[in-house]
């Protein structure tokens, strides 16, 4: 695909005081979703900015999922799947990795910046790894500033709804 990049708008300087990023996480039910659950039962502290969308497999993800989440007001998006080589559907997480890479290019092209999207891998037993991913992504987005799509701090519920709309679009 032909693509060009537009320099992402730097919102880090103009971020409103008390800016709290909205992060949407697409999590595989076999690993990251269970890891998030485990993090909860282990009473691990992790960023409350993350809203989780459970998927059967990260191989279900599609670039439109991410774009819709950003359109809806997410400041950052991450995908969390099983360790490479451990996907329940053999290579769903490897597909997801490729799609995340592709969508980073699309976000660069738009000018939102591919750095606002990331892929993580973990197993169901790694509650701490999920918590670390959530915190790392929140910190990364905090330093990047709010999504250039809107000046006001994100509305987490709207971003989550938009993310779900994206899932629906891709399933249609």
């Amino acid at each position: 695909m032909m693509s060009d990049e537009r320099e992402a708008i730097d919102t880090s300087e103009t971020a409103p005081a008390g800016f709290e990023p909205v992060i949407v996480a697409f999590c595989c039910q076999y690993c990251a979703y269970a890891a998030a659950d485990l993090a909860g039962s282990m009473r691990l502290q992790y960023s409350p900015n993350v809203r989780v969308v459970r998927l059967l497999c990260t191989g279900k993800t599609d670039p439109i999922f991410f774009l819709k989440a950003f359109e809806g007001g997410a400041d950052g998006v991450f995908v969390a799947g099983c360790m490479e080589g451990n996907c329940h559907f053999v290579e769903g997480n490897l597909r997801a990795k490729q799609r995340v890479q592709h969508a980073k290019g699309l976000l660069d092209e738009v000018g939102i910046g591919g750095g606002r999207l990331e892929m993580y891998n973990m197993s169901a037993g790694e509650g701490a790894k999920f918590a670390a991913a959530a915190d790392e992504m929140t910190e990364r987005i905090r330093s990047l500033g709010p999504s250039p799509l809107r000046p006001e701090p994100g509305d987490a519920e709207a971003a989550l709804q938009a993310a779900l709309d994206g899932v629906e679009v891709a399933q249609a």
Partner: protein
Amino acid sequence: MIVAERKPLDEIQQSLEGCKSVLVAGCGTCVTVCMAGGEKEVGVLASMLRMRAKMDGTELDIREATVQRQCDREYVEQLAELGEECDAILSMGCGVGVNYATEVLKTVRVIPALNTRFYGANVDEGVWSERCGGCGECIVASTEGICPIARCSKSILNGPCGGSQDGTCEVDPEIACVWQLIYDRMDSLGRLDKLEEILAPKDWSKGRDGGPGTTSREDAAAIDRGEASE
């Protein structure tokens, strides 16, 4: 199939300048298969354009529709109602789709979102490669099914040229020398002697000559219903 690629977003945005509403129109045939202009790609481009408009603070109402083919009247007409409500249709069909939608829909501007590249095959997952030059008179019976028009960098009919090295083309070591492929194929079929036959200069009047190509089938022509009812 016809293989195409999306144009860069900047170029698309520029060609939509002045439009306040646009119908992003996909095509459900070739460009769906080569992942350039089907329903999914319509969704992605529409989303990218909406985000750009929002970032730039411009007003752009974006609709989406995908029809089975943009090269058949009955399908293109399905775009009429939605398209006419918009300032332009952004076609994600190949160049044929853009031209034909312009012709059929008449009153609405049709703008291309894709660059149409070639006639190709899906040679690997996510990879498409040119296999035919659409030259109007197929000569591959003489080259054992391998087309030097489309696949030789110089389209030569009696190759290889002096630049063929270790099976690759002098133009780019990533490109297989098609005349090496033809040689190997003929060798494996025990037909190397055929290579001694010199191919005569090609009759290009069957291809890019004499204006746009047209072809017809009389048994598929419209029935003259006026006469039939008499």
